[in-house]
């Protein structure tokens, strides 16, 4: 049985709370190896479009990796300390980033301030378009992530489609929030242990909304020698060493120490993950009276098929258009499901499909 923690960087397995030993949530529709949102050699554009109402498909040149992740110091250190050949390209890219200095700080390696601002303001449909932005760790030739085993919170928890629909979104978001919180807390804690003076000088992280861009940053150039020296002090030139030392600190944490580091936030965020997980693994029962979510998007495709999206435009449920019209007529919230069953059965609409549509937030309890 694969556990939740098995999909995360391995150092977490020694201290994360019990819930992370529960069975992993499988997202069978988000097929990264054969991207469900792309036209690939294994499936046509038409096949991809049968399962989405997103206005455009992702490009095979980037898939969903059109995001620049921020990597906490200890995960950078873990990657650099790893000696396995399959991560050689990832290490090379990470060292190149360190050498380039942009976004390289004692707590994390991320994108430039200008990039953060532009990304914040992007049109939602820029997502999946590698011409606009491509993750620096994405290998175009293989379509794979070069730092996969050390990927951070956002990448570990993103799926374009969810088997459990709305509950799945909630679960992965809870996990992302938890991991995001510990990434910050652990990176500051590790820095505190390794280089206390740098930890004390750390600025409070700013959201893009409150970010101000310095005169150097706005040019897109790396920080000046003076700015960089102020940031790194006597660790300048030894950045990789610092990152590895931070990794060593976090790797040595026991569950009890971890709890002490993350405090009440750890308790609250874990509780959220637990509740969200229970919703995913315990499917809801069919409500007695069903109606359509008023915000459902339906697109009719050639060949007499309708694609229905509820919780997300990225995820679509295909069904015969005729069956859709029966659903529309029978499930208007005015009569119990039992009374609608005969006509639903005639249209081959099973309870399993209805339940899936409830999870997809296409149908709701009236």
């Amino acid at each position, binding site marked *: 049985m694969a556990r939740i923690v098995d999909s995360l960087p391995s150092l977490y397995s020694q201290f994360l709370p019990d819930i992370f030993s529960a069975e992993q949530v499988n997202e069978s529709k988000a097929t990264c190896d054969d991207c469900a949102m792309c036209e690939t050699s294994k499936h046509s554009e038409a096949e991809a479009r049968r399962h989405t109402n997103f206005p455009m498909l992702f490009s095979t040149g980037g898939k969903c990796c059109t995001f620049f992740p921020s990597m906490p110091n200890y995960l950078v250190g873990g990657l650099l300390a790893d000696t396995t050949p399959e991560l050689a390209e990832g290490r090379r890219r990470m060292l190149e980033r360190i050498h380039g200095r942009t976004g390289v700080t004692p707590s994390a390696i991320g994108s430039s301030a200008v990039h953060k601002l532009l990304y914040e303001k992007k049109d939602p449909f820029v997502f999946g378009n590698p011409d606009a932005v491509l993750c620096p760790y994405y290998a175009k030739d293989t379509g794979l992530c070069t730092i996969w085993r050390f990927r951070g919170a956002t990448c570990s928890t993103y799926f374009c489609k969810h088997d459990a629909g709305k509950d799945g979104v*909630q679960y992965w*978001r*809870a996990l992302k*929030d938890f991991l995001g919180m510990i990434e910050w*807390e652990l990176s*500051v*804690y590790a820095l*505190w242990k390794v280089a206390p003076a740098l*930890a*004390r000088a750390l600025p409070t992280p700013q959201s893009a909304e409150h970010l101000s861009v310095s005169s150097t940053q706005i040019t897109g150039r790396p920080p000046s020698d003076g700015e960089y020296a102020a940031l790194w002090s006597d660790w300048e030139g030894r950045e990789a060493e610092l990152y590895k030392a931070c990794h060593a600190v976090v790797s040595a944490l026991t569950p009890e120490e971890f*709890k*002490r*580091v*993350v*405090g*009440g*936030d*750890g*308790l*609250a965020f874990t*509780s*959220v993950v637990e*509740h*969200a997980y229970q919703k995913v693994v315990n499917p809801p029962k069919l409500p007695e009276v069903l109606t359509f979510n008023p915000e459902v998007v339906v697109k009719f495709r050639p060949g007499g098929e309708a694609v229905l999206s509820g919780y997300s435009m990225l995820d679509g449920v295909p069904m015969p258009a005729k069956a859709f019209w029966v659903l529309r007529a029978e499930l208007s919230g005015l009569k119990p499901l039992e009374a609608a069953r005969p006509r639903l059965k005639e249209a081959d609409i099973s309870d399993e499909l209805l339940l899936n549509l409830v999870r997809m937030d296409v149908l709701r309890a009236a």
Partner: protein
Amino acid sequence: MPRILDNFPALYAPLLPEFFQREISEEKRATCSNCAMCASPEGVPPPTAVAFHRDTKCCTRHPTLPNYVIGALLSDERPELAEGRRRVEALIDRRVGVWPTGLRSSNRYRFLAQGMDRKAFGRTPSLRCPYYNAEAGGTCSIWEYRPAVCATYFCKLVAGEQGQGLWSGLKEYMEDAERQLSCYATEKLQPTYLLLSQGAGKGKLTAEDVEEQPPPEAEYTAAWGRWVGREREYYKACYEAVRALSPQEFEGVLGHKGTRRMLKVRQGYAYANYKGLTESLRFNTSTTARMMPNGQVAVSAYDEHDALVMSPEMFSSLTEFTGEETLAAVQQRLREQGRPVPEGDLLLELSYHLVLMPA
């Protein structure tokens, strides 16, 4: 002299670190009972660029009250808090901004407050705090239970810029304690709310938000679960959960972040109490000087709300501090020229206010 912990609700006394027993200067220049930022009853403006509104003073903010603080207030039966209890209960009954983690402003209010120009602070009666008691002479009806944002705000500081670090450190520490303790109590009593509240308050305003109406019944019921209609009881239970914590458990709830925040408090405390001057000082060219109707000059540098009032001649003397001579040499030269000489407490105040800075 008061202790640091005297600035915060008494419920924290058994929990806060030993450091909070230390003495702290009373912020005598921030005279809340006779607001130093308001024009006098005769209409004389304060020596600052803007004046606060007499009907609001600095209370143009609706603070979030953590669940356990509400519970503590509702459990406190002293008559002098009756008005505060009444106001809190009225807000609970209204169901706007009433959540298991605490009482918040409406989303419409927050939207306005976030978009407000900083200079509008203290001047907007429509954003007056709901706990502000105008009928009782502009006092706070929940004063003994006021949250960190209110307990650590002063328009003027005795130690000027040197005091800012201490109060901002205390604000961060206590605000984090409020947030973590309210989540801790919610996790004990109504944990599903933590899941439901993911990303709350980050979206756009709903129709109910714009009209300042309660959320839809289903949303409210889902948030409160078995506590619907028993919100007062819930808040009191939160108070009991927090009251049962030992100092060690409290430290555990704050986590390593608490340790880091505490360091900032300690550093701020040391800086606020530092009374040394460097051998050479220079006049801060970012200083703002405003001529007052009585001929005096109001001088401010670190914060436009905090000005020192002096004669134009004294102000003129300050510009002689260029940092090229020692402090004693400039003072001697001014004396020889028969001009006013900044010395003693005034010199220290000018340094606190960053009007004179180390050269």
